[in-house]
């Protein structure tokens, strides 16, 4: 069992920039705007920040963000690896730093020009010789070089194993877009979307079609994490980290763990889920709403299984009667998700999970949300967290 850091860290501020397809500003500008918005939301000053956690993929150095904002001294900065797998890992870093006293107030941030700058959909290329590039080199010469193509390979086999059909993928794609249509910050705000449009959209990498794939977005998101003692004096109701964990499982590759005995699964998320549940003393039945990382529609289904909302191969049945919708068993991705709000590598998901616990989502469920799940990207080392009201 991993160490227990339940209730050691509290989210007290959240911030997003405007999301767009062409920000017209630098990634650093987006980062400092998002962080400033989160600081303001918390009622703090930049100089209250003494720690930072972001992605290894983020181009904004902590010291640049700190100088631009006027943060001053930092006593903790830690980065998390593996693309979207880092989303809740940054929260994990922040929580550990606060729990151990290495920092008192840590900002988690991610900012990118994911559409107007470097686009992940363009795929990988082998310009430099690192272990990472050599890993992609086993796939690039065959043209298997985009995130959609890697996820498609898992999806094809998972659908074959389980008999889950595209009806289930559509339910994920549609439920998030209905949420997005009602969220003014979302790319899909005000937009209609139906099965006919889903079915008619172009194939990307079969079985994934256009609307199974997330946005590519410009924007930034940030959350401020601090101690429970500090949180009690601040402007917003505290949202406590009840459990958080990360995991890389046996025989793990980034997006291409094709060498496992059975590769149509996400054992790394099963371990993370087990540890988060053990830490929080909660189980799947206790989770009221969720923000489940949705770079592609099928990966939401696998995570429902990994977090024990249903068994392996049962997620198609779980979602078909509206479980993910506002009045369903598990309202999920109520901001519209990355499929229809914006793709900020899952950090906008931590923002939304915080809102769900505060009761301020654009699509707030009628029931009280005592416990919200938020997860990182899968197919890579990953993790998740459960957030709840601070005692």
């Amino acid at each position, binding site marked *: 069992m991993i160490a227990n850091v339940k209730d050691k860290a509290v989210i007290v501020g959240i911030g997003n920039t405007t999301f767009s397809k062409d920000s017209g500003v630098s990634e650093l500008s987006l980062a400092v705007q998002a962080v400033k918005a989160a600081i303001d939301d918390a009622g703090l000053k930049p100089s209250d920040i003494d720690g930072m956690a972001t992605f290894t993929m983020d181009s904004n150095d902590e010291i640049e963000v700190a100088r631009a904002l006027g943060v001053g001294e930092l006593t903790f900065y830690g980065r998390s690896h593996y693309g979207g797998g880092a989303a809740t890992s940054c929260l994990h870093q922040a929580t550990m730093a606060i729990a151990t006293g290495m920092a008192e107030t840590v900002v988690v941030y991610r900012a990118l020009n994911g559409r107007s700058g470097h686009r992940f959909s363009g795929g990988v290329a082998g310009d430099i*010789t690192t272990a990472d590039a050599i890993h992609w080199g086993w796939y690039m010469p065959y043209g298997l070089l985009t995130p959609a*193509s890697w996820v498609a390979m898992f999806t094809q086999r998972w659908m074959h194993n389980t008999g889950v059909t595209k009806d289930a993928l559509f339910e994920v794609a549609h439920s998030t877009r209905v949420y997005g249509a009602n969220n003014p910050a979302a790319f899909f705000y005000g937009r209609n979307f139906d099965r006919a449009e889903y079915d008619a959209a172009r194939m990307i990498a079969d079985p994934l079609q256009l609307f199974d794939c997330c946005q590519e977005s410009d924007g930034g998101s940030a959350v401020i994490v601090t101690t429970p003692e500090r949180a009690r004096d601040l402007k917003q109701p505290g949202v406590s980290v009840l459990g958080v964990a990360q995991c890389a499982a046996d025989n793990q590759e980034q997006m291409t763990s094709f060498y496992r005995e059975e590769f*149509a699964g996400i054992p790394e998320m099963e371990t993370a889920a087990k540890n988060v549940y053990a830490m929080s003393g909660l189980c799947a039945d206790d989770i009221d709403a969720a923000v489940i990382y949705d770079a592609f529609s099928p990966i939401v289904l696998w995570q429902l299984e990994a977090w024990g909302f249903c068994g392996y191969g049962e997620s198609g049945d779980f979602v078909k009667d509206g479980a993910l919708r506002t009045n369903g068993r598990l309202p999920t991705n109520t901001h519209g998700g990355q499929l229809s709000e914006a793709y900020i590598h899952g950090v906008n998901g931590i923002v939304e999970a915080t809102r769900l616990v505060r009761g301020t989502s654009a699509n707030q469920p009628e029931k009280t949300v005592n416990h919200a799940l938020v997860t990182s990207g899968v197919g890579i080392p990953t993790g998740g967290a459960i957030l709840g009201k601070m005692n």
Partner: protein
Amino acid sequence: MTTDEQKAIESEIYAFIGQEVYPPTPAADDINEAMIRQWAEIMGDNNPAYLDKDWTANSFRGKTISPPAMMYVWGQEGFQVTKGRAPNAMSNLVSVFDKHGYTGVLGTNVKQEYFKEVSPGDNVTIEMIIDNISERKTTGRGTGYFFETLSTFTDQRGEKIGTQRFKVLKFIPQEQPSAAATEDKLDVPTRIASPRGHDNKWWWEACDDGKVLIQRCKSCQTLRHPPRPMCGECQSMEWDSIESTLDGEILSHTEIHHPKIPGYQYPLVCAVIKLAEGTNFVANIIGCSPSEVHIGMKVKGVLEQVDEKTMLPQFYPA
């Protein structure tokens, strides 16, 4: 060619850099549905955003747009060009090349960038300059210079819609085409190669020589792929390899539709294959229709040269 001759032509052609080919000129006709319909039909592009008013009324735009790639169409001069054109900087530049013996011409590439959408009723103004001229290059088609025009497109409000770069090679034609084969060829895109480092170079070099190897631990005989410096079973760093028979069975597959990457042949099917030796391997499935590929399908691999630079195992239905 002597240095003096080279100096002579270069002093003339480089003077054209930055010169205007067409001053800002509004198109004779506004953007209109009839022309969009013809273009979309010919291109086979049935995107509803261009012509389907019911669909666009419900879309976030609320109206139809002109296909972005049509931007260069609106300013075309039409049938009148058969009567000849007034000289401009580009035709003058071409004359200079021709005078010096660079009579060959080859349009090599067009690159468009889009900044703003426009709709029927808008009007496109085109402006073109000679943006750059390369140093002297030796190509498979002969020795010459690349020149590139830059067209800028704006709407009736003066807002930039997009740009187009058009690159042309003017060259001295080769008299003996066979001799040209030994010269540097024009860049034909090839597949993206794996970088080669300590831990994988040997594998790719064997592939270049027509063999697919599987790394084997010398201590416990466990096979491993992709190659790694240490055995995960017994931590031995001693290894050798065996050659795969390339008999296999498909565990999963996907047909890559979008984006299409230069250098790859489509339709393109990728699969995870369980090799008879027991290790899994990713490669392409060819020799059958993509719709015939299925999980459990038996396949057989053959080393093939797939482009000018790349040897790869290609798997066929067994």
